[in-house]
């Protein structure tokens, strides 16, 4: 076992003290959203108590302070993903909005009839539907990379899909259903050589491993604060500056303009031209604390500890004959989707909840993947850095008791 400061970390997350049906809460639904450390919670309340104010253009001190804190999250996020400039960091409501922005601004304007977009069979609905919408409008073709039985991308199939019409590839970094860590660097390289731009959906990646947009060399990269211990309603779209420069605004309104008259409007510069309206100031400010929390612990250390508990959970789950795991790539994080023969995942979720164990059941917003695997849903356990060996053992014991009912 590593020297990971697990008991200190758990103390930083007050919700972990909660009792559910007289049992200690065991929170295994981290792929849906993670819990928040005290520093994030304090930051939110401190903002509203001490310096709530609308940002940019204010002359008074509260506005100055709010603007400074808001912009410092942008700076922190830039370093966190190793972007080149804060002009490349656009605040959104979450990963979903980032994808929609790129679909509606980049693809709608730069892709024409017959051009092709490649996604994969393991995408979240958020990385399917925005492309379908723009494809319908512009007569584009969507192609999907096959997923193998182990839950990995079929890279040979991917290569076979590329042709001169391929203009865009949008791919998930880590699958929310399977846990698979995809070889995105290789994927970006192959796509770029074929002349296609690439978006990486990193919603499940940023809390678990180091991410470096320069190293990946992707054109766009999206993630959400709430899946990495930050507040809900905030996300980031990273885009290479020269591409963002060329893209027209996605929404019109305040903040994104330079000059407005009834005859014409000139747009603000990056990153503001994509941030119409008053942003989610308090949550953006709180987000910085979440990034700092991860930086202080070190994502290498987090990755190492999470791998240990992943291995433990995997080993124990494999011992139960009736459990069928979906997604068995060696390259995966602690996300376990499974089903139990003769026991519906829905019943399982309810019985585990009675024991204080929170898991997710259903299709996990990946219906096409479920269809491909001939399943209508699974039970999903998703681990985070505050989960422990003890919690996994308790879960395994209760799981065995429940499925023998």
């Amino acid at each position, binding site marked *: 076992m590593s020297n990971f400061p697990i008991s200190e970390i758990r103390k930083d997350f007050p919700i972990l003290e909660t009792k559910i*049906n007289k049992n200690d809460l065991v929170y295994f639904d981290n792929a849906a959203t993670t819990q928040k450390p005290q520093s994030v919670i304090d930051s939110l309340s401190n903002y509203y108590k001490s310096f709530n104010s609308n940002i940019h253009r204010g002359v008074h001190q509260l506005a100055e302070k709010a603007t400074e804190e808001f912009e410092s999250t942008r700076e922190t996020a830039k370093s966190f993903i190793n972007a080149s400039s804060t002009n490349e960091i656009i605040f959104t409501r979450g990963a979903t909005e980032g994808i929609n922005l790129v679909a509606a601004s980049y693809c709608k304007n730069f892709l024409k009839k017959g051009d092709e977009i490649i996604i994969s069979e393991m995408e979240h609905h958020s990385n399917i539907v925005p492309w379908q919408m723009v494809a319908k409008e512009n007569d584009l073709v969507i192609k999907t990379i096959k997923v193998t039985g182990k839950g990995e991308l079929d890279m040979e199939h991917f290569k076979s899909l590329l042709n001169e019409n391929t203009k865009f590839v949008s791919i998930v970094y880590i699958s929310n259903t399977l846990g698979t860590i995809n070889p995105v660097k290789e994927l970006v390289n192959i796509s770029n050589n074929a002349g296609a731009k690439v978006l990486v959906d990193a919603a499940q990646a940023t809390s678990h491993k180091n991410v470096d947009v320069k190293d990946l060399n992707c054109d766009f990269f999206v993630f959400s604060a709430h899946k990495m211990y930050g507040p809900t309603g905030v996300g980031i779209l990273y885009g290479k500056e020269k591409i963002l420069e060329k893209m027209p605004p996605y929404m019109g309104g305040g903040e994104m303009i330079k000059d407005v008259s009834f005859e014409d409007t000139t747009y603000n510069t990056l990153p503001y031209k994509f941030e119409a309206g008053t942003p989610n100031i308090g949550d953006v400010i709180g987000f910085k604390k979440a990034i700092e929390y991860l930086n202080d612990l070190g994502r290498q250390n987090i990755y190492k500890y999470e791998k240990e508990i992943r291995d433990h959970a995997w080993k124990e789950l494999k011992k139960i004959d009736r459990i069928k795991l979906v997604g068995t790539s060696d390259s995966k994080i602690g996300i376990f989707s499974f089903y139990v023969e003769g026991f*519906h995942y*829905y*019943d399982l979720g*309810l*019985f585990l*909840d*009675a*024991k204080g164990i929170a898991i997710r059941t*259903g299709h996990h917003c990946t219906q096409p993947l479920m269809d491909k695997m001939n399943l209508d849903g699974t039970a999903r356990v998703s681990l985070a850095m505050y989960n422990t060996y003890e919690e996994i053992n308790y879960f395994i014991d209760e799981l065995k008791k429940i499925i023998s*009912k």
Partner: protein
Amino acid sequence: MIIDQIQEEIIDNFNMLDDDIEMSLNYLMELGEGLEPLGDELRIDDNIIKGCQSKVWLSHTFEDNKLIFFGDSNTAITKGLLSLLISVFNNRTPKEILESKLFFINETGLCRFIGTQRSNGLEAMENKFKIIALNSLKNG
């Protein structure tokens, strides 16, 4: 009214479980096991209740102005909930069913145990019983 008496009995039974969620789930599972499984010929789209997260089928016969229900679900807990609804509405006239008010779901706290998304499913189930009653009244 018999429908109300049956509901009172259900409430009494759940009160004995002392708000213990696991015991309530076990009890629901047992109740569900008591329902006769539906044959494949009745597990058809016409009998599916929309709005439920899990699959629920409801079929019926109508004789001597009384409705008899047959139901099934692919999940044990939902099947238990369905069996409670069937016990409330079985052997009643369409008029009795249409005039009834379901209060046992709230009073047993079943909606609290089962959650909001799923109590919408319960509502869909109740509606299906009432639609069957209404159609029987029109056709009967």
